[in-house]
């Protein structure tokens, strides 16, 4: 999902990416249909939430840490689903094998958000349980090799993420809760998906660029933004365009001569950060700014930018870039600056789309030729076709311009 249709859709709609042919061009034209993301919807519920429920139901006895990891993963799955689709099954989702419920009730997004927080709270409690599990995960844990401190850190980070999403509802409350959670977050290790050289282990952005080469290019908005700031990450984000230099595809341009994705996101074994310290710092900056703590906001922002440049390029940011983009003060820091740099740092992540929807930054111009014939960018995915057809309790929303609850 983080490297599948939802992530590509998010990237194209936020103009970090450009859909230049076929199905990706369709997204670029806001021609988004109810069957487009079925595989990803199924991945979330069949391969993420269902196995997590399975672990909780069948294997949690004597294995509190296993259970906690399952709850964290489930919270992330629900988070992606609700941010892209709005109201989704929460309590009753992925329970088919456990209680035979094949038409799970849809929960209001507000309630899904409450569930995410309580799943994470429960996970935090369990992760703090002393002793070891009957079946230790240990080296089988592809993320943290069973390091509970890192899982705990991730759980808090996710609490902050899903708290700050609610700024349109109650900004102060969102900021306070986010900061509260972040007080437990340090730079102990990011939750990252890692990839291998075998075909079935490849980074999926890479595989997409191999098998579907004409479909996707860098987006003009992001490329221009990074060129304007001489961003040192540009050379790893984007490949050199066929005509030389770095070129982004404008919405609807079908410009296949634009740059392809670079090795940062789309290398054969490039890892993808699912929840990391840089994101935590940006949340910290935004939350502090909301609460009027501008100095803390500026500090967090500067650290976030510098850390991310270091992470992405492997070397410290050049002085000129630091001066221009990582030297904010209490007086100069703005929400737009925070969100724009977060937009760059969380490249090709669903978070960037969520952030744009709730803050309006960066400022985007809708594709003027879009098939919806309206000067607006879609704000959600339509309810999945199979849900409409086979779940009698589905709450169907086909209008992709309708905001989700936290975006209202």
């Amino acid at each position, binding site marked *: 999902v983080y490297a*599948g249709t939802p992530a590509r859709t998010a990237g194209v709609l936020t103009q970090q990416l450009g859909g230049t042919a076929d199905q990706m061009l369709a997204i670029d034209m806001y021609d988004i249909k109810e069957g487009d993301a079925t595989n990803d919807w199924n991945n979330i519920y069949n391969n993420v939430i269902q196995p997590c429920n399975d672990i909780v139901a069948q294997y949690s006895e004597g294995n509190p840490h296993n259970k906690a990891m399952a709850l964290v993963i489930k919270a992330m799955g629900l988070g992606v689903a609700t941010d892209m689709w709005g109201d989704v099954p929460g309590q009753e989702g992925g*329970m088919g094998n456990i209680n035979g419920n094949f038409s799970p009730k849809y929960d209001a997004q507000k309630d899904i958000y409450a569930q995410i927080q309580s799943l994470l709270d429960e996970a935090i409690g369990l992760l703090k349980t002393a002793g070891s599990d009957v079946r230790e995960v240990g080296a089988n844990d592809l993320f943290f090799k069973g390091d509970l401190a890192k899982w705990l850190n991730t759980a808090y980070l996710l609490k902050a993420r899903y708290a700050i999403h609610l700024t349109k509802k109650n900004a102060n409350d969102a900021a306070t809760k986010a900061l509260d959670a972040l007080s437990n977050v340090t730079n102990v290790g990011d939750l990252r998906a890692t990839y291998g050289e075998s075909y079935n282990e490849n980074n999926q952005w890479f595989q997409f660029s191999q098998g579907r*080469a004409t479909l996707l290019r860098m987006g003009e908005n992001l490329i221009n933004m990074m060129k304007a700031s001489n961003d040192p990450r540009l050379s790893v984000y984007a490949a050199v365009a066929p005509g030389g230099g770095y070129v982004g595809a404008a919405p609807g341009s079908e410009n296949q001569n634009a740059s392809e994705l670079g090795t940062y996101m789309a290398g054969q074994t490039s890892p993808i950060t699912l929840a990391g310290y840089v994101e935590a710092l940006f949340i910290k900056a935004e939350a502090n700014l909301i609460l009027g703590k501008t100095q803390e906001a500026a500090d967090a922002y500067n650290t976030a930018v510098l850390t991310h440049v270091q992470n992405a390029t492997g070397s410290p940011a050049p002085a000129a870039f630091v001066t221009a983009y990582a030297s904010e003060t209490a007086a100069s820091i703005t929400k737009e600056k925070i969100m724009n740099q977060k937009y760059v740092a969380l490249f090709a992540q669903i978070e960037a789309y969520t952030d744009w929807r709730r803050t309006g930054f960066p400022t985007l111009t809708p594709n003027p030729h879009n098939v919806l014939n309206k000067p607006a960018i879609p704000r959600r995915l339509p309810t999945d076709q199979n849900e409409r057809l086979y779940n009698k309790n589905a709450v169907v929303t086909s209008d992709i311009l309708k905001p989700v609850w936290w975006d209202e």
Partner: protein
Amino acid sequence: QTRTITGTVKDSKGNSPIPGVSVAVKGKGTGTSTGPTGTYKLQVANGTTLVFSFIGYTSQEVVVGDQNVVDITLEEDKKQLNEVVVTALGITREKKSLGYNVQSVKGEDLVRAGENNIIESLSSKAAGVQVIGSGGTPGASSKILIRGNSTFTGNNQPLIVIDGVPVDNSTNSTVSQTYPYNANLQGVNNSNRALDINPDDIASVTILKGPSAAALYGARAGNGAIIYTTKRGKAGSVHVTYDFNAGFDKVSQLPKEQHIYAQGSIKNGVPVYLPNFTTTAPVVESWGPKISSLNGVTAHDNTKDFFQTGTNFTHNVSATGGNDVSTYRISLSRADQKGIVPNTNFYRTSVRANFDTKVTQRLSMNASMSYAATEGTKAQNGSNTSGVMLPLMRTPASFDLKDYLKPDGSSKNFVNNYDNPYWTTANNPFQDKVDRFVGNIGANYEINNWLKATYKLGADVYTDGRKQIFAIGSNGYPTGQLEENTIRNRQYYSDLILSGHKEFNEKYSITANVGGNVTQTQTQNLYGRGTDLSIPNYNNLGNASTLYSDEATVLTRSSALFYDVQFGYKNMLFIGTTGRNEWSSTFGLHKNNFFYPSVNASFVFTDLVPKNDILTYGKLRGAIARGGLAPDPYTSLTYYVKPYFADGFTDGNSFPFQKQNGFVYNNVIGNANLKPQTAVEKEIGLDLKFFDARLNVEATYYHKKTSDLLVRRPLAGSSGFQKIVDNTGAMVNKGWEISLSGDVIRSRDFNWNININFTRNKNEVLELGEGVSEIDVEPAFTSIGSFAIVGKPYGALYASRWKRTDKGELIIGSNGLPIVDAQNGNIGNPFPDWTAGARSTFNYKGITLGVLFDIRQGGKIWNGTIARMHQLGRTEESADRERTYVIPGVTDDGTGKLIPNTQAITAEKYFKSYLGDGAGSATENAVYDGSWVRLREVSLSYRWNLKGQKIIRFIELTGTGRNLWLSTKYPGVDPETSLTGAGSNLTGFDYFNNPGTKSYAIGVKLGL
């Protein structure tokens, strides 16, 4: 005064002796019958009248004069009033006693057009039967449906039986368990395994069309059964037959392309030539300027240049012979086919030996063995990186595909993620090699003069070894990949039947069969894949640096007890009933056995009316039966599998992942309460023969309701599963089958015979379970699916549609293009309204001319090929681009009122987003009518019967043509096409399918 006369009885056609002919003295009730060599010896008085009679031949009377030798030649009986047919379990019956319709096809009709596949050669030869070929590549599968589809997710094809033993006709696909999508869409169009049978060995085929006819086969024959009977030996001196057939195949029909405009795009309203195929990002469109306006650029007809003339050579040698005790037939055959796609081929070498022997007066035994080595090389089709049609159709005319090699030997591609077709057919072959043994032994013991016992034991064993090579430098696998797949299949079958026949008072008769059978099938599928090859052209798994393998095994067993009883009254009224109780390992855990009954009746009413010149024979028949279909193996269980994470665009991530294995529940949840699905079929029919059987009509109406359908019912993904196997819903097939045959001219030298088969089947999904009105039959593409929708035929095409007014007019948006409906819906039905086959045969002395027309009315096909070609500016139509288009429809005048659309749009927009599959288009635009009228077969043959010749008995010369003429409005390849082949239930999909063929052949046959 009596004396001894002798003689030989021969068949008028083959000039071969006929054993078992009754030679009776008229009015006396005495007589004899001919021996295995067709000879007889009898004591008669002068002036006696002898009556020579045998089933299938016209009786002949001869008055004995003073001669000592009376040789007789019997003519085949064209009236066929006493026709005998093989029914279920090898039981032979007089056709007049059957209450259901069966149709027979003679072996010689199967081989006439030189088809290598005994399924394909049934097309348009029997009513109620639909054969769907996959395209003209050698060995591609053919699918057969009888009386429509009767299940959703399982196998819809009939059971194939050879000499009483069921054989495997699977179309296995090669795919790793990590492959996340529908395996039928991937790779090549694999063969259906009936391809291993040599058509020349077939004596006759009987088609048991539905549960009524096939109830005795139980769950396996829920879709009917096709009974092949092989040729057997004849007593007498050795007769050898040799024939040779040489066929030539050409592409039958292709989408029409434009060769005017070059590669490029329209920039700011101006076509720009963009020949940058050397970079990784070629412009795949043909929206550039005119080729004639460009210096040094010429137009190429890549498609025409690519396809070659295919060849098909077959040799058959057979020998028959025997004596009073034993007879034999031995045959050897070889088929040698090269396809229209370069480097594709099909080879089959087969031997068969059939023996029959009388061990004692009461015990006879028989054996039948065949071995076939079938192999071939296939090309990928559809949207596969090594498919051939996709790059052929997409490549602009300004690019020459023939120039396909780079100096380093790698492929010079046009479409960068698809291989050059010349390179791929040379470097990325898919090869399969099958060794197959099919055989059975049987014993027949006559307990007394009314009761006998037969036992049969059969085996069908094959190994199918396949290899797919992706050479280093191929686009899908730049570092090279090898796939090795071995499928081992073993099927054992055995039955024991007690049969009795008794007559009482010359009025009543009873025929009964009681028995049991056991079947076991075992399949092992081994898959190995090696990637990252080190040495070019060393196609051995040892050359791979990364290896993956998996295995799947399936074991099923079923056993049954059955009876078949028939009562007859005055050889005029017959009532029969059958029943079978079956135990199967694939039924759910709660109930593992089911009962399948049937009742049928036939009434030969002409026996009650006085003999007249008009109506020679009339029979009314009716039958009702319940058939079944067992669940697929292991569907009653929810089991763990290795999950894959894929989004429809890439092959995704799967386990083992970074040396960690992983399992989650299969996305299909099991169901322990599964029952077999049941089909209740009622049929009534009328068989009439007029004017001394010059005009024959068989008409049948059937109504088959399938309920408790075994459905892989889709679930909302949010349940945690995608599907559940369930007995859900009901479907009905009803229709007419009419066979009409007539001798227009019947004379000594000239005969003209017409044979027409008409089929109309209407399928309707009646219900799909509570709250469900639509389900996805089998995953296809994200843009289009095959659905079962309540009130519509099964397999309805389901995709995006245009938004329309109540009157059906398109609603045009402010950009001049129609608006797409937010929700997908039904956009057409791929099954024909009716089909017909009409054969005309002319005989003049030794010359025979046969003409077979095939008509299909209706049946929609999704032509994804043409939609994409429109989008890319490749179609002939899209060459008309220096103008604007106005799409007929209505548009909002700004006040909410709908007025006719007058807004002109550019040709580019018109072809990309209205006719094509570009952004903003609806898939419904690519659905076309697949009706056709075709000259399916035409054959001309001449036979010299060389009487008195010692060495050569006859010579036959034939010239045949297949698909020589095709009339269809379908804008693509031959609409007899199937993307996913016989292993799939998807129908009506054409996405860069390989084209069909038309063929010419000449043959010679020698009788020695």
